[in-house]
């Protein structure tokens, strides 16, 4: 398998680029020779990208940073199109994967244009049509793209005002814009955006850059932002008319399948393609440049599967996965010895605690926490439809990274980026799991080989095996308490899973919080909240153990170390709605409560959980979760609630059930039957409180609500059993 690259070690993560992209794109080793390329696609189309430049960019990290943030709209025309028929189209490079980006961006545009949302058409994520707004990741749409769209819309509104005042020779103060029209208060004359569109000078005016400092509508005057605007695609979602990447079809399209290795490090030695070629309406695709790539394309998925099965049976592989001898993966671990492996391979070894030999302290506590690989398991597995036409490649696919996938395709096929178009239809969820374009590249390889458009839809097993995972991690924590029971020193090392939220939000005299990369045995990448899920779990569980060591109540212990007012506010809200003191004092041996809080990406969360424990059966059931969440000024309360509910429930899965098991380069639980994700009856009573802070800028909300769930439940287990929880998923 391709070794996953490591996360850049960083003590101080850049707040803009959140370092949640440890993933290296798959290294494509089927690079065509220039001659083969020209032969295949015709001369005149090959403008090879300078590889040394790419390598330099990669080294500097500049490319990934540009990919993450994007270049934004170069001018107003790239952001907003006004039709002479009165239509208004707003373009954004974000994708819709269920998180509600389209509705929020519509709100942003409608607010500043002073039009109803129904007047605006939102065009998302088509690299030929929209500006590069970067990846849809890191909870970035709300804090970055919503303001970018607002600035564009406000610029257009100002142009409408200037246009009308020019026509009427009036001061700007004499007019106002309402319901899409600029109106002269004195005479009631009016002009609208269609009039502006028809004006001769407008096209030139739209070539101007969008001013970064343009005045936006103050929050207290918001009419559209701050309200629960419903999703514009809602009707198509309930009728089944909405088209996902796996639904897109093109004339003459075939269905593709890829021969997968039986284990990550297996090597194809030989294969007989004749049985597949004997099946009518099947094209077998082999790449002269890459003897490991075998695919089929056929008139139906069924036929493609049959063809693949026919040749799979003839394949000879370089390793024997079931061999009882030395593992073919050499020193690669299984999920059973994963954590020792990660520790052993920590870059430079885990650093020692600099405070270990400090002045004498009252008490010290040391713990190690293990967090497994888990899978995003979006309900729509990766899918891509690729079409080559006149040397140009178009791919429809589900990815959070439209411009990044365009770059990936351009590099893979040695094409200039303007010869590649990536279109991202709304797709069946991602959760940080679709930053890459491996399925897009595979579909394009099949389409090139077949000479026809090819739709490739990964199976669930492929998604569980060949997508990337949330990184596993080991967290070493050591703290000392002074005579007053306060934390004197804090040492907290995350090995392998990432730097997000590795720093403690608590006020502690001496801290050493670090992320140390290791050698990950599986390909890993982003996730909802990424390493904040691991770091906040370990920190908050450790806090409860320290509280117990100090003979303190978990809430009082946190209060004694908590200066951050926003974090205090959510903690107080959650504990008060939950009636923490009352429930914590209850003496029921089979019921317990726990709490946790945390902050990441500018938003704040606290959760209280009530659990029921069956000691004989070693089972636990979460009965109630009360969560308070604050992310500044709320842009869309209805959508925010959905995001918080969804993150909470996803957090339940990671807390109680989810864990990738692997051995000998194979995933052992690559199905929904064996990898359980939350279902309806797993959902406890949820009591969610959204705290609006109109005085603060809006932060994103898709991730942080997940980070308090696992530690709140683990702390309830610790409270009930006295045995500390030191691994996910939680077992009693």
């Amino acid at each position, binding site marked *: 398998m391709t070794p996953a690259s490591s996360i850049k070690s960083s003590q101080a993560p850049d707040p803009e680029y959140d370092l949640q992209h440890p993933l290296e794109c798959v290294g494509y080793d089927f690079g065509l020779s220039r001659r083969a390329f020209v032969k295949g696609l015709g001369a005149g189309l090959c403008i090879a990208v300078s590889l040394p430049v790419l390598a330099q960019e990669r080294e500097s990290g500049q490319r990934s940073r540009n990919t993450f943030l994007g270049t934004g709209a170069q001018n107003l025309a790239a952001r907003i199109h006004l039709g002479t028929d009165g239509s208004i189209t707003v373009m954004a490079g974000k994708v819709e994967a269920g998180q509600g980006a389209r509705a929020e961006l519509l709100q942003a545009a409608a607010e500043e244009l002073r039009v109803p949302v129904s007047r605006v058409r939102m065009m998302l994520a088509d690299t030929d049509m929209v500006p590069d707004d970067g990846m849809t990741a890191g909870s970035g749409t709300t804090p970055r793209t919503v303001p970018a769209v607002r600035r564009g819309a406000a610029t257009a509104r100002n142009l409408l005002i200037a246009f009308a005042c020019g026509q009427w020779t009036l001061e700007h103060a004499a007019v106002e814009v309402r319901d899409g029209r600029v109106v002269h208060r004195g005479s009631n004359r009016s002009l609208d955006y269609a009039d502006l569109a028809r004006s001769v000078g407008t096209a030139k005016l739209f070539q101007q850059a969008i001013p970064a400092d343009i005045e936006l509508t103050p929050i207290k005057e918001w009419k559209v932002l701050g309200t629960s605007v419903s999703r514009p695609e809602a009707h198509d979602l*309930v*009728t*089944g008319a909405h088209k996902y990447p796996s639904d897109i079809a093109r004339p003459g399209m075939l269905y593709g399948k890829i021969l997968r290795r039986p284990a990550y490090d297996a090597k194809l030695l030989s294969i007989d393609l004749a049985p597949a070629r004997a099946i009518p*309406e099947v094209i077998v695709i082999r790449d002269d440049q890459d003897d490991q790539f075998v695919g089929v394309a056929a008139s139906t998925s069924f036929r493609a599967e049959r063809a693949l099965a026919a040749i799979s049976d003839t394949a000879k592989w370089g390793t024997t996965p079931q061999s009882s001898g030395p593992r073919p993966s050499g020193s690669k671990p299984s999920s059973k010895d994963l954590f020792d492996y990660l520790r052993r391979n920590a870059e430079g070894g885990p650093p020692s605690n600099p405070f270990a030999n400090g002045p004498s302290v009252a008490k010290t506590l040391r713990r190690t926490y293990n967090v497994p690989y888990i899978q995003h398991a*979006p*309900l729509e597995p990766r899918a891509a439809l690729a079409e080559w036409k006149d040397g140009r490649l178009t791919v429809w696919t589900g990815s959070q990274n439209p411009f990044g996938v365009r770059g990936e395709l351009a590099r893979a096929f040695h094409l200039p980026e303007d010869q590649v178009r990536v279109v991202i239809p709304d797709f*069946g969820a991602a959760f940080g799991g679709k930053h890459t374009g491996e399925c897009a590249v595979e579909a394009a390889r099949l389409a090139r080989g077949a000479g026809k458009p090819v739709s490739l839809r990964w199976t669930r097993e492929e998604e569980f095996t060949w997508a990337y995972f949330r990184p596993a991690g080991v967290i070493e924590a050591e703290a000392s308490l002074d005579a007053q029971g306060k934390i004197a020193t804090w040492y907290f090392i995350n090995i392998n899973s990432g730097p997000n939220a590795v720093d403690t939000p608590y006020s502690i005299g001496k801290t050493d919080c670090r992320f140390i990369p290791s050698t990950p045995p599986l390909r890993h990448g982003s996730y909802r909240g990424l390493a904040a899920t691991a770091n906040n779990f370990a920190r908050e569980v450790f806090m409860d153990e320290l509280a117990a060591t100090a003979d303190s109540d978990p809430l009082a212990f946190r209060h004694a170390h908590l200066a951050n007012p926003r974090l205090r506010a959510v903690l107080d809200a959650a504990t008060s709605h939950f009636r923490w003191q009352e429930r914590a004092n209850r003496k029921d041996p089979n019921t317990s409560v726990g709490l946790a809080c945390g902050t990441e990406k500018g938003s704040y969360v606290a959760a209280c959980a009530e659990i029921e424990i069956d000691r004989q059966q070693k089972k636990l059931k979460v009965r109630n979760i009360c969560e308070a969440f604050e992310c500044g000024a709320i842009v869309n309360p209805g959508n925010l609630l959905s995001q918080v*509910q969804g993150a909470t429930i996803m957090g339940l899965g990671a807390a109680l059930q989810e864990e990738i098991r692997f051995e000998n380069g194979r995933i052992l639980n690559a199905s929904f039957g064996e990898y359980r994700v939350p279902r309806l009856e797993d959902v406890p009573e949820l009591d969610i409180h959204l705290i609006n802070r109109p005085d603060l800028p809006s932060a994103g909300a898709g991730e942080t609500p997940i980070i308090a769930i696992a530690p709140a439940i683990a702390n309830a287990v610790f409270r009930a059993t006295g045995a500390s929880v030191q691994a996910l998923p939680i077992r009693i």
Partner: protein
Amino acid sequence: METRAETKTDARITFTLNGESRSVITDPDRPLLDVLREDLHLTGTKYGCGEGECRACTVLLNGESTPSCLTPVGSVNGQPVLTIEGLAHGDKLHPVQEVFLAEGAFQCGYCTAGMILGVASVRQKNPAADEAEYRAELQKHICRCGGYPKYLSVIRRLAEGAQTEKARI
């Protein structure tokens, strides 16, 4: 593909799809899901797992909530199949669709068609169904976005509506 060559395993399969008689000539072992999506171009029915665990592929076969990924098309010969595309009457949404829409009960929407059909099957079999009956059906469906609180609102509204209806009678 409309122009598929007949092979010796192909058979003519005729069934009622969304109220209309349809015939396909194909391999009877193909999953109904594939035939709906690839031959009949009804893409509202989704693939999620291929093992009946997620129910994104739910259709109503003889009114029963059925995973079309595990249903060979040959087995539906002569039977009525309802997909999400056949649930509304023209522009008039089915009451279950109306409630999903009103509650905003979707996130990515990939499971939505299956959820709606599952709920509709319970309601069609027993218009007075209670929450527990709806819950038993929804337990079979996966929503990875975690939209379950909204589905609970949907089925509570349907169950309460049925109660109100009963009280009126």
